[in-house]
């Protein structure tokens, strides 16, 4: 028997019937229905079950207050734990019933999720009468207004005026879920969920709104709350306001024969509406002993008996557990009624969640028998106000704790008084918590899990506080409420990720030569956000072989690499030299124009923070390079010191990392290659010495050439404005026999020379001295007592303990076994089973070396500089490799190769 009325239903489009299914059973519906209204309209009363008890559960409410009816959507992309009262139907919607717990569909969710930022002077949450009034008033002031409402359309007569106003943005199907500091409000707009397969493919299904508002007005209305009694969870027990709403909005009779039990005037009005719609009301009961006469009269006119001072003391279920009898205790004793509907209403809770989230205080109102907004959030710079019924709750409510909060139910019955049906938590659980010694509402919530389910206690929360007050024998005001936390309604992870998925999840940074690398099919390494060529394999070549070949080319011939990711900072000003003296350990102010110097930066606690080169371009222009990873932080550091400590220094810094593409050209034949490309440049050892730079025309392009080496070989860095980076790469590549190499070979070559990589051979606990770079600390500055960042820390006793970890080299004693990065160093022959095994250091870098003819490693070793020649075991995954400690510069320690 269908309970769909032949006419009516303000949301329905009866010209558009659709078919949906639940657990494979087809259910007819109309566009405009929710799943809940469609199921009620077809007398499908079972929607879900208790998570532990398996007790049948039906639809209880009509909106976000719903605490029972959650389903798994299985059509479209699928979605777990969807509230039936807010799920709009569409042709083909398919759902499955679940017992309090959903599942994650397999596979990638290809849904388009979207975000938008909006700015306004006034945000109005809620588009009912009070909200529309507030919005129109604001709009009349000529300011930007955003109105959010979670329904499909505004129903207020003035909605058209509002929507057409040029400075008003009305967002429907939009729920404001978070009120964060400084009036940052987060809302979710459901854009195509109701369209099913008709949804345009390009339109994002859901959109997360970030609204920044100068002022927020909450017109969020109220949420109906139930009354509690034994077996209050049966399908057929509904909220009275919800029952009336199903009639009005969806043309659905929520039952045919019913009892209404309420505690406030709005509930009586709902009873009148149900009677008018054709529900046979056997009796309307009110917990109060007096009610507004007009409402009593209205019921009397309809022949509906009204019993005052009454309460439901239990229900009976049929074989399926569905409601079929109500036990109502009135002044004349308990009467049993055969029904299929019990509509209850304990009052209307002001929807104070956003108020509370924003820091507003709540106070118990006896009048509303609920928590109402009290003191506003402390931050007066961000005004927050409440209008309409969200301020006051229900009308004509009275406090009647004994009935409200089920005080006199015996313990056996208390186990069937559900205070959180979704979690199957009951009055008995609250009593148990009390007996266990708990007195705080927060403890009781955790003990019983009440209020932790999908509805977050919206329906039952106030009742739970009342129940607890009763159990504790304390006033409600002393028990207090729990804190409301965002989000107001659950948000999909995917929506929060928005576009930040896959390739867009973190920016991919590329150099000017990137297309060349892609065309060459080069494996790329993630270096921070950058994609860098890792190695350049020839056909069929392994990484190992490719790297050995590339290394050999640089050591014996000539190679090239894309070094564009190096951080670059140009410094202008009369005091740059002084500034650099203060932030580098070395002396920079003495650097002559045309020269380049290596530099180390420390943090104030004396640990190595970065290294790079400093080139003096003119009297007042300098170019710094930084490691790829620290480009941003070095600029930040320079600006911070200059702005906050040394504003008197004339120094300005501009990042030019992407302005310059850089080709590193390295190897004994690099001079010849450069000479061929730059016929006008004097490349002789005398004319262009190590650690100098020249501006030159290279392959017809404007290039700044620096004679710098990160491999120990004769080498140049060619810096070109990045617009010509590709052209320069092509020119060098076609210069004849130049082998391209990647980051792996670069690492091998620098390690062979003992050049540490900040962040690999250091970890924030290593000083320049530990690295064997005492030479990078200017003796002149030390002699003259000139400070630099980190200097004071370097003279602490701790910084000079002889057993600090020093950078050393390692080679396998057998000359062939590879050493693994991350190995820990232990005594040679140590019993690895006799834990703890004392550790003396660890391997920071390790490679095969074609130049050395042996694998080798760099390591940080306790007191390492005094242990040269000592044998240790380098242990990786419990496998020891016997190693000998060496100087950290295994290759060309005299530096004879840098001039070619």
């Amino acid at each position, binding site marked *: 028997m269908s309970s769909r009325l032949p006419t009516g239903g303000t949301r329905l489009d009866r010209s558009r019937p659709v078919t949906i299914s639940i657990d494979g059973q087809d259910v007819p519906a109309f566009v405009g229905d929710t799943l809940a209204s469609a199921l009620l309209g077809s007398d499908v009363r079972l929607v879900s079950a208790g998570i532990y008890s398996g007790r049948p559960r039906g639809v209880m409410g009509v909106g976000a207050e719903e605490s029972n009816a959650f389903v798994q959507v299985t059509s479209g992309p699928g979605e777990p734990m969807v509230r039936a009262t807010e799920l709009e139907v569409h042709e083909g919607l398919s759902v499955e019933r679940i017992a309090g717990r959903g599942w994650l569909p397999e596979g990638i969710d290809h849904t388009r999720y979207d975000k938008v930022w909006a700015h306004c002077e006034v945000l109005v949450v809620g588009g009912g009468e009070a909200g529309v009034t507030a919005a129109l008033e604001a709009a009349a002031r000529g300011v930007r207004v955003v109105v959010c409402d979670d329904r499909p359309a505004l129903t207020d007569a003035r909605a058209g005026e509002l929507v057409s106003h040029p400075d008003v943005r009305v967002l429907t199907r939009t729920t404001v879920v978070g009120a964060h500091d400084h009036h940052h409000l987060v809302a979710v707009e459901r854009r195509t969920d109701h369209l099913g397969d008709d949804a345009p493919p390009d339109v994002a299904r859901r959109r997360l709104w970030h609204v920044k508002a100068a002022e927020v007005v909450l017109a969020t209305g109220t949420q109906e709350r139930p009354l509690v009694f034994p077996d209050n969870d049966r399908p057929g027990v509904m909220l009275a306001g919800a029952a009336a709403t199903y009639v009005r909005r969806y043309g659905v009779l929520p039952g045919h024969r019913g009892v209404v039990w309420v505690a406030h005037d709005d509930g009586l009005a709902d009873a009148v509406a149900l009677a008018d719609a054709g529900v046979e009301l056997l009796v309307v009961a009110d917990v109060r002993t007096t009610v507004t006469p007009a409402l009593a009269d209205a019921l009397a006119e309809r022949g509906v008996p009204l019993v005052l001072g009454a309460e439901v003391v239990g229900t009976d279920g049929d074989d399926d557990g569905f409601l079929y009898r109500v036990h109502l205790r009135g002044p004349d004793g308990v009467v049993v009624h055969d029904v299929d509907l019990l509509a209850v209403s304990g009052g209307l809770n002001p929807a104070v969640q956003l108020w509370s989230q924003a820091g507003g205080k709540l106070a118990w109102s006896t009048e509303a028998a609920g928590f109402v907004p009290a003191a506003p959030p*402390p931050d007066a710079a961000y005004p927050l106000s409440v209008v309409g019924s969200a301020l006051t709750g229900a009308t004509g409510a009275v406090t009647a704790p004994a009935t409200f909060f089920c005080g006199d139910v015996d313990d056996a019955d208390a186990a069937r008084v559900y205070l959180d049906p979704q979690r199957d938590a009951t009055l008995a659980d609250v009593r148990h918590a009390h007996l266990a010694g708990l007195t705080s509402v927060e403890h009781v919530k955790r003990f019983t899990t009440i209020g932790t389910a999908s509805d977050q206690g919206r329906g039952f929360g106030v009742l739970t506080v009342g129940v607890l007050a009763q159990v504790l024998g304390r006033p409600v005001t002393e028990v207090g409420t729990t804190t409301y936390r965002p989000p107001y309604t659950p948000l999909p992870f995917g929506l929060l990720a928005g576009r930040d998925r896959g390739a867009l999840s973190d920016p991919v940074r590329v150099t000017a030569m990137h297309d060349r690398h892609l065309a060459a099919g080069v494996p790329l390494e993630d270096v921070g956000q950058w994609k860098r060529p890792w190695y350049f394999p020839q056909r069929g070549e392994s990484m190992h072989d490719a790297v050995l070949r590339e290394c050999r080319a640089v050591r014996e011939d000539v190679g090239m690499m894309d070094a564009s990711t190096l951080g670059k900072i140009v410094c202008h000003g009369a005091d740059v030299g002084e500034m650099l003296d203060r932030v580098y350990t070395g002396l920079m102010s003495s650097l002559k124009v045309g020269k380049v110097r290596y530099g180390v930066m420390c943090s104030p606690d004396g640990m190595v923070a970065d290294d790079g080169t400093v080139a003096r371009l003119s009297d007042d222009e300098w170019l710094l390079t930084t490691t790829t990873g620290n480009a941003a932080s070095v600029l930040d550091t320079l600006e911070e010191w200059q702005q906050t400590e040394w504003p008197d220094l004339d120094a300005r810094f501009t990042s030019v990392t992407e302005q310059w593409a850089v080709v590193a050209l390295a190897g004994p034949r690099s001079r010849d290659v450069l000479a061929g490309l730059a016929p006008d440049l004097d490349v002789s050892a005398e004319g262009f010495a190590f650690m100098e730079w020249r501006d030159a025309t290279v392959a017809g392009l404007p290039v700044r050439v620096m004679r710098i080496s990160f491999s120990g070989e004769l080498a140049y860095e060619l810096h070109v404005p990045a617009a010509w980076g590709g052209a320069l790469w092509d020119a060098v590549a076609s210069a004849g026999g130049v082998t391209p190499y990647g980051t792996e070979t670069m690492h091998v070559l620098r390690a062979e020379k003992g050049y540490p990589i900040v962040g690999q051979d250091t970890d924030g606990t290593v000083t320049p001295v530990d690295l064997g770079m005492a030479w990078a600390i200017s003796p002149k500055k030390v002699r003259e007592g000139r400070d630099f960042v980190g200097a004071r*820390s370097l003279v602490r006793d701790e910084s000079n303990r002889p057993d600090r970890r020093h950078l050393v080299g390692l080679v396998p004693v057998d000359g062939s076994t590879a050493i693994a990065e991350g190995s820990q160093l232990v005594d040679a022959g140590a019993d690895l089973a006799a834990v703890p095994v004392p550790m003396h250091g660890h391997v920071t870098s390790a490679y095969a070396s074609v130049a050395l003819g042996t694998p080798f490693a760099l390591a940080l070793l306790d007191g390492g500089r005094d242990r040269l020649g000592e044998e240790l075991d380098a242990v990786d995954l419990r496998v020891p490799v016997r190693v000998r400690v060496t100087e950290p510069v295994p290759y060309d320690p005299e530096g004879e190769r840098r001039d070619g």
Partner: protein
Amino acid sequence: MLTLPCPFCGPRDETEFGYGGEAGVAYPERPADLDDAAWAEYLFLRANPRGWFTERWVHRAGCRQWFTVRRHTVTNEVVPDAAAQEVR
């Protein structure tokens, strides 16, 4: 998301800023003259009040200026720091 008052750019989202912790911790005039304890105080000791706090931010994604605000560490109320509001 906090909104911070950049003295040059105006109020902007927290995501554009870098945090600089307590304001007014000056680099010592002559670090070499400090004993280890005094130096450690400069390096590591910062106020951590539950309440009003004067702190530094840098508008990293904007004008790159450092500035100072007073913020309440419980309520997150923010007011520009009068002493530090010399917009150049």
